[in-house]
C-alpha cells in the first residue's frame, strides 16, 4: 500500500470518527447521519487535494473489503428479529410482499415517468433496502452502487423524519404496522428512529428491514433479468 493509500485509510477513519461524534452529540439527529457527513467531507477533501477517486480507493479498499463479511453477518440480526413475528405471520408476509414490490415499482416508475436516465432508474430500484445490500443488488442490475448508497441513506433519513407524522390519525395506534412499514421503506435509519418512538415499533421495523433486504435482493435481479430494457443493465 502506497503512502497515499495509508493516508486514505487514515482520513476515512478520522472523518468517520468525527462525523459519528457529531451525530451522537446531536442526539442522533437523522439529518446528521454520519455516513452522509463522511461521504460529503471525504468528497470535498478529494476535490481540494486534486486526488482522483481511484487513488483514494487504492487504500480505502482495505476498509471496503470488510463490507463483504459484515454483510454476510447481517444474517444474524435478521434471524434474531424473526422472534418479533409472534402471531402476526400472515400480516407480516402480506405486508412484506405488497410493500417490497411497491417500494421497487414506485421508485422505478416515478423516476422513469419523469424521464430520468436509465442509470438513475436502476440505481433507485433498491433504495429502501439497507445500504450494504442495496449496493450489492444495484451492482447486479447495472446501477451504480455509489449512487445507490447515497439514495438509500437519503431514503432512510426521509423515513426517519416521516415516521412521526405520515400515518393518518385514526382510532388506535398499531405500533406493529407503523414499525413494519417504517423499516420496510427506510431500513436501518428508519428503524433506529422507530425504536425511539416505541419498542414494538422498533422490533417490527428491524424485522421488516431484514425481510425486505432478503426479498428485494432475491426478486429484483430476477425481475431485472426478465424485464425489457428500462431496467436491464450490463
Amino acid at each position, binding site marked *: 500500500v502506497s503512502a497515499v493509500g495509508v493516508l486514505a485509510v487514515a482520513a476515512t477513519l478520522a472523518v468517520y470518527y468525527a462525523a459519528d461524534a457529531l451525530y451522537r452529540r446531536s442526539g442522533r439527529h437523522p439529518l446528521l447521519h454520519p455516513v452522509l457527513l463522511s461521504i460529503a467531507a471525504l468528497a470535498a477533501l478529494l476535490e481540494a487535494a486534486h486526488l482522483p477517486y481511484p487513488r483514494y480507493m487504492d487504500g480505502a479498499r482495505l476498509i471496503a473489503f470488510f463490507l463483504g463479511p459484515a454483510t454476510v453477518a447481517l444474517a444474524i440480526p*435478521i434471524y434474531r428479529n424473526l422472534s418479533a413475528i409472534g402471531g402476526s405471520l400472515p400480516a407480516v408476509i*402480506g405486508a412484506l410482499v405488497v410493500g417490497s414490490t411497491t417500494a421497487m415499482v414506485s421508485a422505478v416508475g416515478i423516476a422513469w415517468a419523469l424521464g430520468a436516465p436509465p442509470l438513475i432508474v436502476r440505481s433507485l430500484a433498491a433504495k429502501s433496502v439497507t445500504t450494504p445490500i442495496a449496493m450489492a*443488488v444495484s451492482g447486479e442490475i447495472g446501477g451504480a452502487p455509489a449512487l445507490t448508497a447515497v439514495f438509500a441513506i437519503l431514503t432512510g433519513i426521509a423515513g426517519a423524519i416521516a415516521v412521526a407524522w405520515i400515518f393518518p390519525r385514526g382510532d388506535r395506534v398499531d405500533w406493529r404496522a407503523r414499525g413494519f*412499514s417504517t423499516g420496510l421503506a427506510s431500513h436501518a435509519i428508519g428503524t433506529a428512529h422507530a425504536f425511539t418512538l416505541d419498542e414494538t415499533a422498533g422490533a417490527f421495523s428491524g424485522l421488516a428491514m431484514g425481510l425486505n433486504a432478503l426479498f428485494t435482493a432475491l426478486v429484483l435481479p430476477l425481475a431485472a433479468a426478465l424485464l425489457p430494457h428500462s431496467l436491464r443493465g450490463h
Partner: protein
Amino acid sequence: VFTPRLPAAALLRSLAVLVGCELAGNLLAGALGLPVSGTVLAMAGLFVWLIAVRRVPESLERTSQGLLRILPLLFVPAGVGVVAYLPLLRREWLVLAAAIGGSLAITMLVTWATMLGITRLLSRRGSREACDS
C-alpha cells in the same frame, strides 16, 4: 470491550466462517450463473442455516456484533465514489427528490395499510369463528 474476552482462536474462526461463506456464495453464484450477488447469496445461506439449527454460536454472534457496529464505516469508501456522478446529480436532483420522497411516502402508507387490513380481516374472522363455536 468484551467481557469475558473472546479467545483469539474463536474470533479468527468466526471471521474465517464469514469470509468462507462469502467465498462460497460468490463461487456458487458464478458457477450457476445466478443474477444474485454472491455476498447476498451467502447471507441468505447463513440465514437459512440459522433457522435450521435454531441457535447462533456464541463466538460467531460476538464477532458479528463487532463487525456490524462499524458496518456504516465500511460502506463509506464505496459511497465516496459518488464524486464521479456529481454532474448527473446536479442535473437530476429534482427527479430524484420526487422519486425518493414519493416512493417513500407511497411505500410507507401502502405497507401500513396492508398490515392493518390483513390484521383486521383475520381478527374479524377469528371472532366470528369464536362466536360460531
